[in-house]
């Protein structure tokens, strides 16, 4: 029997339907072109020499042996950077190529282009660099007192939030210190791309990234080229999760292409990828919660210390997020937050899904459990009692004007049935430790944990956040142009659904995402559904209005008697019926819109201000089986409730909830870049573990809560990050519940359970 033939184009679905991805079929067939699949005639392979030392002076660099190797086209060092010698996402503090000092293990020093990847690798190995190594600054706790490792000093940002009466004390107080390890985004498609010199002296760069325009601006500055001579096109992106928000090889590739006059391709190995992008900030957190006897939170004090690593990346924004969301989704009338992110010789940290809120959620949810226990109160009841509501004031003084159904999120999840505890489990795949029969079920303790979290949507702190989209309809076929980076999240599907919803066209094509149109901003901060979705919505609406105006003019009627329904402009009395196909065959229509969200404010010296546009809330409940003697864990069940504003595509929403939850589980149980004296010890998928299919149970979705968000297109909130925030603390709370241990650090390792004496009741 033959396989089914594809007939669907996937573009006639409206908002609220599980429209299939337009790129689903090529991806399933293996035909979708990812950035590592690029190929060109006469192309060269690029490779990067990276520092083996986390801190060293460079005394000399000798490229002669590498340059002399057959097949090597060029070798470049810092001297060859044509323009600005540094780059950076928010602030240019990282050298394109290090020349005098290296500040982290893996920092780029030299580049090679050669005829074969092996030649390029051998040439990299033939570059001789003389180093004078220095003791690395590895401990963020001493960074501010240590000798500056960068001309801009070791403090990246110190932020204080003072809210309410800081002298008030609660009758019940609980205190705790928490630590979060360094997590990697571990996208599967490694950094890769191709640069091709253009005839006008510029360069074409095809690259996997989250934000084409911010890359372009950095590349142009470093190449000393006007931005119109640097053209970027999004190449197929194999996941991102924050790791592609910073420039990695972008400038390097363009330098090699311009020097050699040939196309140059570069693909990082998995090991190099660990050194080639930023990670989630490791953090050390101290909290003291104050409550009255009834369980009302009176005050929270906390100190947050984030390790930013060698360069700034987005650290200043991450620490602001950590501080702003440090309380969790609870009403806290008085708060004192002291938040610092410092520079060290550790790997650079920046954006990862959840962006600061992941770290603080682990701590505030542990504190909420502790507080409930100290009060002798039910943990769910304590959360419900203090849950944020619309109209409540955050610790930044901002009043929630949008939706905030926190209590409903909590209630629906708490009401979801728990899995039955079996009398016995004999299949070792279902036991802690898995196959090999390491654990006997009679030794297993079961625990349940609950956690709630929230974070902002879109960019904050006064950033003028916008996206640009163009919609053209020609002969009834719509084409959407937007530079939004599709990284797997499904914007391409939503762009089609939104256009179909508004114009009723049968077919929506998507033009390539590139820099020939204005910026779409970053695919981060759960913002593209709102921002680029909003831009597409606005551009399609402008097309509709133009069509109606045209018919009104031609037919001599007022626009108010016309509407566009199911692809037909018609009058309310039924006398006019003209299809969009007919209208746009006669004269195509094109509209381009730059869509901005409502402005936000900077935080003042007390951390007060309307800094955020909107908030998303989620909760998770985890059930774990633990063998306390062996420290082995199995996640038995994970359930979630999330509020989303409005569901635009149920299937894609499910995918975001499941995928986001999985990354939070990974942080709870296994994922950490082990950094020892500023050196990464596990830069591989052999040693950096991410959850497999055997590690994760089916996600139970207890409730999807829809309360349309004012100001958001279709009322929809971004859903990408919230699931990652609350899953980590829920899993660890379940482990605490099973073991009675404090477990104040993630990821929780077997020795933390088997060898710990740190009991909760100590």
């Amino acid at each position: 029997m033959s396989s089914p033939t594809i007939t669907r184009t996937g573009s006639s679905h409206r908002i609220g339907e599980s429209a299939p991805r337009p790129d689903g079929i090529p991806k399933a067939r293996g035909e979708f072109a990812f950035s590592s699949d690029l190929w060109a005639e006469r192309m060269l392979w690029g490779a990067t020499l990276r520092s083996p030392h986390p801190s060293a002076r460079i005394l000399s660099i000798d490229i002669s042996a590498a340059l002399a190797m057959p097949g090597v086209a060029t070798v470049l060092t810092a001297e060859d950077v044509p323009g600005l010698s540094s780059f950076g996402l928010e602030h240019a503090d990282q050298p394109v190529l290090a020349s005098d000092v290296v500040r982290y293990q893996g920092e780029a020093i030299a580049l090679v282009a050669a005829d074969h990847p092996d030649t390029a690798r051998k040439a990299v190995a033939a570059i001789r660099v003389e180093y004078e190594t220095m003791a690395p600054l590895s401990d963020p706790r001493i960074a501010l007192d240590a000798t500056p490792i960068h001309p801009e000093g070791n403090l990246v940002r110190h932020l204080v939030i003072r809210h309410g009466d800081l002298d008030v004390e609660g009758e019940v107080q609980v205190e705790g210190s928490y630590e979060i390890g360094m997590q990697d985004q571990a996208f599967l498609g490694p950094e890769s791309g191709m640069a091709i010199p253009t005839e006008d002296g510029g360069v074409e760069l095809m690259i996997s990234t989250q934000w084409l325009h911010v890359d372009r601006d950095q590349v142009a500055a470093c190449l000393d080229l006007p931005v119109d001579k640097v053209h970027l096109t999004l190449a197929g992106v194999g996941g991102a999760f924050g790791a592609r928000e910073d420039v990695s090889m972008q400038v390097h590739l363009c330098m090699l292409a311009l020097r050699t006059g040939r196309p140059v391709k570069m693909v990082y190995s998995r090991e190099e990828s660990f050194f080639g992008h930023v990670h989630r900030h490791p953090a050390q957190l101290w909290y003291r919660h104050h409550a009255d006897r009834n369980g009302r939170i009176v005050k929270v004090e906390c100190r947050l210390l984030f390790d930013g690593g060698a360069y700034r990346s987005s650290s200043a924004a991450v620490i602001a997020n950590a501080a702003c969301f440090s309380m969790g989704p609870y009403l806290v009338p008085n708060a004192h937050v002291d938040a610092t992110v410092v520079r060290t010789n550790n790997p650079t940290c920046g954006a990862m899904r959840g962006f600061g809120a992941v770290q603080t959620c682990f701590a505030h949810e542990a504190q909420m459990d502790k507080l409930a226990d100290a009060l002798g109160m039910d943990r769910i009841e304590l959360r419900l009692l203090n849950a944020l509501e619309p109209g409540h004031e955050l610790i930044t003084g901002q009043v929630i004007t949008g939706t905030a159904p926190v209590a409903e999120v909590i209630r629906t999840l708490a009401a979801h049935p728990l899995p039955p505890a079996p009398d016995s489990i004999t299949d070792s795949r279902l036991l802690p430790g898995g196959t090999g029969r390491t654990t006997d079920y009679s030794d297993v303790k079961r625990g349940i944990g609950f956690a709630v979290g929230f974070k902002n949507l879109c960019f904050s702190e006064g950033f003028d956040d916008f996206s640009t989209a163009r919609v053209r309809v020609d002969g009834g076929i719509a084409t959407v142009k937007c530079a939004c980076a599709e990284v797997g999240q499904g914007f391409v599907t939503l762009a089609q659904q939104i256009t179909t919803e508004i114009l009723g066209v049968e077919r929506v094509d998507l033009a390539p995402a590139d820099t020939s149109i204005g910026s779409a901003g970053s695919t981060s901060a759960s913002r593209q559904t709102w921002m680029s979705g909003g831009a597409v919505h606005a551009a399609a609406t402008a097309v509709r209005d133009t069509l109606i105006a045209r018919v009104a003019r031609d037919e001599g009627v007022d626009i108010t008697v016309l509407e566009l329904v199911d692809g037909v402009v018609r009058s309310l009395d039924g006398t006019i019926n003209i299809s969009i196909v007919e209208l746009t065959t006669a004269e195509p229509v094109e509209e381009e819109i730059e869509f901005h969200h409502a402005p936000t404010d900077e935080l003042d010296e007390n951390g007060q201000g309307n800094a955020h546009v909107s908030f998303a809330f989620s909760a998770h409940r985890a059930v774990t089986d633990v063998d306390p003697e062996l420290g082995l864990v199995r996640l038995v069940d994970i359930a979630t409730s999330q509020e989303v504003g409005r569901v635009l595509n149920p299937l894609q929403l499910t995918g975001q909830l499941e995928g986001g939850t999985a990354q939070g589980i990974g942080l709870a149980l296994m994922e950490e870049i082990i950094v020892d004296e500023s050196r990464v010890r596990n830069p591989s998928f052999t040693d950096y573990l991410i959850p497999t299919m055997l590690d994760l149970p089916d996600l139970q979705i207890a409730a999807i809560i829809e309360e349309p968000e004012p100001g958001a297109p279709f009322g929809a909130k971004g859903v990408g990050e919230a699931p990652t925030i609350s899953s980590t603390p829920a899993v660890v709370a379940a482990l605490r519940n099973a073991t009675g241990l404090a477990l104040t650090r993630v990821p929780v390792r077997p020795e933390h359970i088997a060898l710990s004496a740190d009991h909760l009741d100590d």
Partner: protein
Amino acid sequence: MSDLVSYRLNVNGQDRTVADGRLGESLLYVLRERLGLAGAKNACEQGECGSCSVMVDDELVCSCLVLAASAEGRDIRTIESLAPEGELSYVQQAFVDAGAVQCGFCTPGLIVSVHDLLERQPDATDIEVREALSGNLCRCTGYGRILEAVRIAAAERLADGSESRA
């Protein structure tokens, strides 16, 4: 410098010549960079993620761990062989329908693995599927929709009663 060798590979039923290859090149590299078959993916190139999965003499392998020249004379089948141009195999169709594809980088390797699994064990239970596919990493989906795609594909395969399908 490296010794250059020329050899032939039987890929998807076609006799292909690899001219002036380097002995150290993996099957993954040769498929992708020399034979224009980029469906097998390069996520880790150390045999941990399954993105480069192909069949060699009906055995599921990570093509990153196979020296290309050592595969001479063997029957190599890649994702590109699973369905004719413009069509989808039942597993590919199930992945699209179930929402198992997000970024898609793991997808071809997973689909090759699922075909292999359902050929060998058409009635695999959920836990058996999870174990069989635990060598294929996915970072986007959390595996929920992938498991659903396998359930759909397995059900369709059983209902169809077909012994062997494209």
